């Protein structure tokens, strides 16, 4: 069975790029435009992994991650932040909140697939 990704980003363009790369790598994908939509998606079906933007309307990435990790089954998905917020304080905060990996935008297929390999998902 294909592993599932939830792509959480308010940019339709970024979601499209990520969708293309992840599907090419053999994954199933679902999408959300903000943290609140993403939490609703996780309640319906917990994904195997989440690609997560930081700055989004309604609920940002770090708030989503905090709530996800507190949900039943919410510690299971691998969470990859994928953001332009790439200073050390954001990286540290993401890791402390429970992110597994951190991708700095802009990214490409090589970066994403090498990060997946690090988490045993490639």
């Amino acid at each position: 069975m294909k592993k599932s990704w939830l792509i959480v980003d308010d940019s339709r363009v970024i979601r499209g790029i990520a969708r293309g790369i992840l599907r090419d790598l053999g994954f199933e994908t679902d999408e959300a435009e903000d943290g609140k939509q993403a939490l609703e998606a996780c309640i319906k079906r917990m994904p195997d992994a989440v690609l997560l933007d930081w700055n989004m309307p309604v609920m940002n990435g770090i708030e989503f991650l905090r709530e996800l990790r507190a949900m039943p089954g919410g510690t299971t998905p691998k969470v990859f932040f994928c953001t332009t917020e790439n200073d050390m304080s954001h990286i540290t905060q993401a890791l402390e909140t429970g992110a597994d990996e951190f991708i700095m935008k802009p990214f490409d297929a090589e970066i994403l697939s090498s990060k997946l390999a690090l988490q045993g998902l490639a």
Partner: protein
Amino acid sequence: MKDDVFTFLAKLLRDQSGLALPRDKEYLLESRLAPVARQHGHQSIDAMCAAIRGGQNRAAERDIVEAMTTNESFFFRDTATFDTFRKSILPTLLTARAGSKSLRIWFAACSSGQEPYSVAMILEEERARFAGWNVEMVATDISNEMIQRSRNGLYTHFEAQRGLPIQLLAKYFDKEEQGWRVKAPMRERIKFRPFNLLESHSSLGVFDIIFCRNVLIYFDLPTKRDVLERMSRQMARDGVLFLGGAETVIGVSDRFAPHPGHAGIFVPAQAVALDRAVGQ
């Protein structure tokens, strides 16, 4: 590219670096040497070669060799190799060297430095096991430019993300305007120096571990054999040689034998141990 130009460049590269360039790799000459030609004020690669042939031009020759021998590298390239290093090879050598508490590692073609820094990060993560040890890491490359890049330890946004876990980036790198730089204490742990594998290896001393991954594939058979023989003389009798996952010594040299169960990892053959025992 004219035949005589290709022949001239192939000979130059073979003589100066051991690089064997088959005709089907002509496109590499075209793509990598066009910028070198421009940099030296020539309209084309043909024109640059004509100028070099007309007289000594060591700077252009050096830049040609550097451009053709520079290869892509990234952190923890082939993760399985580094897992084996950490989980199997390192513990065995730690036990074997418990008396001397000394370990020497050579990165024989370090390119832009990601391989030695990957190993340095592993050693740092395992530092509790190295208390009081003297661990020496020597990283060499034929390219002066690559050695300088390695010493600088500065990687672009893309390089810093390829293969490097974010936890290690956060721990061992500083963010700068141009990219991510390896922290000074880590950079200072590795001795970077230019070195041509075709030269005598004896000045380097004896190593417990040699990394020479994805290098021999660019040499012809006699050069591979020669380099492996030189390396065997610089290796402790229970040392370990890392080649690329698809590289082998079988049919190339009897100085090394495959490490049981690990693709791309080799140990000195019995013949080498016997040579040492009789003082050869």
